[in-house]
């Protein structure tokens, strides 16, 4: 209903991305976002979307360890950079402590915002192994969740942080 920008039909770009530790070759239209390339061209549908406008945090992935909204990131900008998604978090069938904590402590209800929250939390815990509750809330404030009311998300991250510290 609103005016739609004409999509210029340019030839696909072809490049290498490092996704979850693996080099992948992928060919896609140059205007595609990282979100679209992950979901549509690489079949990594674990990364979800809630608005495609950078408003909800659902599509957060890690690029060179930093949480980034994949809906606002052009995939061609990610050439040669390391992209981490929810699919890369477990080691084999062994869950990452964040994944286990979210599953056990109510951090995930419908599960739709979960990948984005977990990736954001991972970036936090990789840098700050023992964050306060306030710090956790601050770090995840860009990830909207409509189910949990956040309390159990914060608790899950606390549980995971504790687990990760004890494993070190």
């Amino acid at each position, binding site marked *: *209903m609103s005016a739609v920008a004409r999509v210029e039909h340019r030839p696909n770009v072809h490049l290498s991305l490092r996704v979850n530790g693996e080099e992948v070759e992928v060919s896609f239209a140059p205007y595609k976002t990282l979100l679209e390339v992950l979901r549509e061209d690489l079949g990594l549908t674990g*990364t979800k979307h809630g*608005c495609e406008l950078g408003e909800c945090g659902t599509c957060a992935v890690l690029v060179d360890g930093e949480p980034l909204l994949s809906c606002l990131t052009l995939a061609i900008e990610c050439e040669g950079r390391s992209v981490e998604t*929810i699919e890369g978090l477990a080691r084999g069938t062994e869950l990452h402590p964040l994944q286990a904590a979210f599953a056990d402590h109510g951090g995930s209800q*419908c599960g739709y915002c979960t990948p984005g929250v977990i990736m954001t939390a991972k970036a936090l815990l990789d840098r700050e192994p023992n964050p306060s509750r306030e710090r956790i809330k601050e770090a995840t*404030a860009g990830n909207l969740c409509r*189910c*949990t009311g*956040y309390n159990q998300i914060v608790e899950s991250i606390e549980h995971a942080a504790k687990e990760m510290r004890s494993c070190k």
Partner: protein
Amino acid sequence: MQVVGKARRRVDGRAKVVGQLRFADDLALPRMVHCKLLRSPHAHAEIESIDISRAEMHPGVHLVLTGKDFPIPFGIMPVALDEHALARERVRFVGDPVAAVVAKDEATALEAAERIEVKYRLLPTIATPQEALAHPETRIHDYGEQGNIHRNQAYEFGDVAEALAKADHVFDDVFFYEGNTHLPMEQQASLAAVEGDGKLTLSTSTQNPHYLHRQLARVLQMPASQIRVIATPNGGAFGGKCDPANHEMVVSKAALILGRPVKICLTREEVFYQHRGRHPVLMRMRTGVTKDGRLTGMHLQTLLDGGAYGSHGPASTFYTGVLTPVTYELPRFRFEACRVFTNKPPCGPKRGHGTPQPRFGQEVQLDKIAEKLRLDPAEMRMRMVTKADSLTANWLKIGSTGLAECIRKVVEISGWKDKHRKLPAGRGVGLACSAYMCGAGVSIYWNKMPHSGVQLLLDRSGQVTVLCGATEIGQGSDDVLAAIVAEVLGISTVDVRVLTGDTGLTPVDLGSYSSRVTVMVGNAAMQAAGRVRDLIVAAAAEQLDTLPGRVILSQGRVFAAEDSNKAMSFVEAVALAETKFGTLGAVGSYSPPKAPGRYKGAGVGPSPAYSFSACVVEAEVDPDTGWITVPRIWIAHDLGRSINPVHARGQVIGGVYMGLGEALMEEQVFRRLPPKLSSALVHRIPSMLEYKSITSLDMPEVEVALIEDPDPNCPFGAKEAGQGPLLPVMPAVANAIHDAVGVRIDELPITPDKVLAALALKAQGKEPRIGPEKFPHVPYPQPMFVLPPWEGGDGNELKKPARKTAGVAAS
């Protein structure tokens, strides 16, 4: 008990944290094409012509559909079949779908949609219920009661005029509850495909695959047996995915025409247009009380802004009143409700469905009553809570109730007695209570079949598979199913496979709405599991040389009560049962008990059980900015028994969160563009950034007390937890703000500007209140008169009441 009541990882927990749970938009099929809808830019217009020729010729386009392709109307309720998949002669709100394009990709479909030429003849638009009542000549629909009134009803349970006349005080308040929307994180998506067997499969984010199945058969004019609806896991729903939706009809039709899979995913903006959210409700509440704070009667009038279509409206209209008498003893009750059409996205069911609005009004009014009578609001409520196994004035049967315990508990854990009217200026606490149903007692369409069916399959491998039409919307319904079956069979939820929400494979369940899943699905699962258990026990008893009544199933073992050495594994016992009885399985089903009310309309409100909540909110108000901070919330919820306490607590906190958002910021509001911009009635904020919701930084810590008072109608006594805990939050916030700064904000959301305006009135010595001033004249019908149970009634309408005629609707 080994499973029920124990904190466990939910059965679908792992898939969600590893990114393997497949939501609708995660699905893809070979040869799949993509669909986009063209939506109306006008709030109210006649479609004079649609020219799709340029769109059809656009490269990459496979199909263009318009209203001509959808002659059959649909709707969730049989009395409100007022939608077409694509508008035919008329559009009724900005965002009403007009045409659909199916193309090789979304971008091409969008480009082609721009090439569709629609000629509209603009019609006057109706923005508010007041306008709808004042302008019956601008008729949005040609059905309904009259003009723009969709539903109009009135009931009187006992002579309320007399009850008010005899009261020591009558409190007369008008409240307004602004509309708001579900805002699920997952945008609705659907994938339709004609399978190899020639049948249609629609995988879609729906809460109610069964009702959708019926409506698809209707719209597509196909036997339902040729259609399979798979409810994909919903990425949040909250009522917003209950209605059969236009896009679901469109992709199904397109897949049938093209013979190719057709997918659609709504944009976030479109989700705001799909809406079906909280009705804006204006209400007037006249309540008689004795000097010691007991209710003598209530006259409740509501006016609902329904938006452009019927949706669940007929039910929503009832729900703005019918559950009001469930919390406190109310000897007489008069309830008038009117739903009108307006040119805005349709309103429907959102968490609490129609009940939060009058609950807000009643609980704020009770706070005013307590203030005036110098009573403690908690003690005043405690003295008049409804009793277990009692009837209400409108003939609802209350089973168990833990409301008194909820109040006692929340008063204790919040430190209420040391805080209420005692905190320093700018800080306050507010209390409110509520009740909610555990499943609607009557199906959306009239039938006498079960509300829920469960099938269990077992075999010699020991695997247990549960099949049920229930829909996992994040609330944990799959886990409830697994837990109940595991508990009955003495195994772990890890040993149970759950398959749900698939009309092609699973027995009918009506869906995930009205907080019905735990009770109805749970009871059906208990019956099926019990039947299978009987077979296993009979086979094992023979082998163990004991009586069937002495066989115990526990922790994956089957053994004799008298000698635990007489034992075998669960797997061995299942193999014995298969040997003895042949292929193993059982079905279970559930229908709610018959409700005592016999009058027409008595079908809305009855439930097998009711949950109860009591909530205390602490609030801090900055007198300079009006900014409201909520540092802490305490809530006690009577859920009968928790099946999984981690997730029961999660449901409660999630409800509190959503209620707090509705109290402080969430609103789905519209504005009129200036005349030079067509005067269109447009959504003010169709984006997640502008539709304000609470973030992790705003959200207070919630202290939850789960009150367990098992209800005999419920599986292991478990009642609902998904909706009830939202209800008391909004009024508790309003009451806390009053305790903090002495102002009454009688409309939601309570924003800083309203608080400041009220504080300014207070400073001027005027009544420190912000809220609607008056209730408009609504042409309610003469009420149907029913005597309450304690006045000798039998639950039927009293046709020729031997009483003086009650006054006509007050205006």
